[in-house]
């Protein structure tokens, strides 16, 4: 029987790059989707508001694990090849679109109505009103919660282990099955996640404090 040594540690550590890669995919895709959702939620178009509202309700009201299963088992229904990479990527992108969309909707709506009215009074078209007036200001408010949400994404990627995607958690399971030393294996797994997530949490908290201090001034 194998015992937990340096090579086992390296095996888990190396899987961290897949966790990071999957997190990046989820974040970039989720940011694009989230922006669309946030803009639809704040638009004047009833249909866009209704659809994006339903999207958020569905993806915030069902477990991420079930979303992952639905994409993973739903892809063959649509005649697509099942691949843990694609399934995990798509499910995490959809999920983070809903959450980031809702966070950013709040940030957009936090911009004082005077700003909207001023942009309208200057007769700026919608694109310019958003791009030049509202979004840059909303961006400042959104930064801290967005960094905080990145921690949620990294933790969420651990669920991909359940459909067989080899990232930190799955590689921990594999090593645990070979060594039967769950205490040390899962401590190492937890420690790697902690090292990935904690700096982001600290950064988010710092940004929030600085933002609060800037507002109080």
């Amino acid at each position, binding site marked *: 029987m194998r015992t937990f040594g340096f090579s086992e540690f390296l095996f888990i550590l190396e899987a961290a790059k897949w966790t990071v890669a999957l997190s990046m995919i989820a974040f970039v895709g989720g940011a694009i989707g989230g922006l669309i959702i946030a803009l639809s939620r704040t638009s004047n178009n009833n249909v866009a508001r209704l659809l994006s509202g339903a999207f958020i309700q569905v993806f915030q009201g069902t477990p*991420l694990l079930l979303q992952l299963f*639905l994409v993973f*088992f739903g892809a063959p229904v649509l005649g697509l090849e099942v691949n843990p990479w694609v399934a995990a990527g798509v499910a995490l992108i959809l999920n983070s679109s809903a959450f980031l969309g809702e966070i950013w909707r709040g940030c957009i709506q936090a911009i004082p109505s005077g700003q909207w009215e001023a942009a309208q009074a200057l007769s700026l078209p919608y694109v310019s009103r958003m791009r030049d007036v509202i979004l840059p200001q909303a961006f400042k408010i959104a930064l801290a919660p967005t960094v905080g949400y990145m921690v949620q994404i990294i933790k969420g990627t651990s669920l991909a282990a359940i459909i067989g995607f080899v990232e930190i958690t799955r590689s921990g399971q594999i090593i645990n099955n070979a060594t039967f030393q769950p205490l040390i294996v899962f401590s190492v797994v937890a420690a790697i996640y902690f090292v990935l997530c904690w700096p982001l949490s600290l950064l988010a908290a710092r940004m929030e404090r600085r933002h609060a201090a800037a507002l109080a001034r």
Partner: protein
Amino acid sequence: MNYSFQFGDVFAAWPLLLKGTLNTIELSLLAMLLGLMLAIVCAWGKTAGPRPLRWVINAYIELIRNTPFLVQLFFFFFALPALGLRWSAYAAALVAMVVNLGAYATEIIRAGIESIPKGQIEAGLALNLKRHEIFRFVILKPALRTVYPALTSQFILLMLSSAVVSAISADDLTSVAANLQSQTFRSFEIYIVVAAIYLLLALSFSALFRVIYRLALNYPAGR
């Protein structure tokens, strides 16, 4: 798309799905209750306790909030028995959920406690209330009222993340779904139905929390 949906097998298994749903509800309610109690104790420790206690509570919060729930679950289910603690998947799942919720809820309640103006606590002292009475009526209740929306959405997130405990077969709704899936191979249909049940549960819980607010916390407050 030439796939014919067959929900027959899924609906035929409704007693199993019902049992799984009830298990998920029970697990979530227990975890909410125990997690809230843990969080109140930790929030008290963090705002009023001695320095070493605060340090321990901070370490607990940071550790839980920066690691995935699935890993915490594996830790409780696989690692602790290696230390000699034998328990069922259900117990391990419940403890993991309580510990997880406790960390998030502590931070939420602490924020509520810190929002209580000092004058309010001094007013309690002036009325000669005992220390525990001040904490309970002057600090905790208004604090819970202030953070109620954040706290209840954390509760619902916990209920949803309880699907993860199916990874250790804790007999919850998702475990039932996984079993059905391996018997009938109607995976897509099963997971659609189960996702719909979770959505219904999430909506019911938020309705329940609105009722609780109206019954317990809806009193006029001066500003």
